[in-house]
């Protein structure tokens, strides 16, 4: 991907890739939501992307800025412990550890990410048709 943001397509493309990363993390979290492990360290913890703005080199003149994913972090939510001595994954004391994933939160995250994704597509579709009409100017 080009380093600088030079036009509106760069802005929307980057924003959409960022939202895509966010959707990927949601998918991973939901897929692992029901995992069970035998120790707290092994238990799955929800992951979340950290967004930050990237500004075009000539931002003051153009006002162009977009989004990038800085890193993907594990959330602070602790895995829940449950006493189930019969479970095959139970540890010596008979406890199992459930994934630290809040499925309700993940679903809301998914809705928000897909809505933002759609917004960016809408913007680019509108501006593209404006560009095409501008090319036809004077015909």
């Amino acid at each position: 991907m080009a380093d600088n943001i030079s036009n509106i397509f760069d802005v929307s493309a980057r924003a959409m890739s960022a939202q895509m990363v966010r959707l990927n993390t949601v998918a991973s979290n939901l897929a692992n939501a029901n995992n069970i492990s035998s120790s707290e360290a092994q238990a799955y913890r929800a992951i979340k992307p950290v967004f930050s703005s990237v500004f075009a080199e000539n931002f003051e003149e153009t006002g162009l800025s977009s989004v990038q994913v800085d890193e993907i972090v594990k959330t602070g939510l602790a895995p829940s412990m449950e006493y189930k001595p019969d479970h095959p994954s139970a540890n010596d004391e008979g406890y199992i550890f459930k994934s630290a994933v809040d499925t309700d939160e993940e679903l809301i995250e998914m809705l928000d990410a897909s809505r933002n994704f759609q917004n960016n597509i809408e913007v680019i579709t509108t501006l593209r048709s404006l560009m095409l009409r501008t090319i036809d100017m004077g015909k």
Partner: protein
Amino acid sequence: MQKILDHMGVHFTSLQLRSQRNEILASNIANASTPNYKARDINFGLELQKQLHEISNFEDASGAAEIELQYRVPTELSLDGNTVELHVEQMEFAENVARYQASLSFLNQKISGLKSAIKGE
């Protein structure tokens, strides 16, 4: 060339500024979920005055007056410090696109007027 530019009137400058504002608003929409991002916008009327002033002073079509980005004041604060309110940005964007198209059709009419004057029909 200056005469043709005069004929185009305000729409030439307006189209440039509208297109720039579209990009600023699109950047806001792109950053709708970035923590601590502050939504920006321009005061269109003021910027248009500035550009027109620049053009009339220097008789230069490039209209090089710099735009001044301002921060949008959000109606409600959000916890993550982001001041983009999607509905506000979308409304502004929709309005700006409509006004861009208006300027475009004014320009088209001016151009076809010029064309028929050249042809002498």
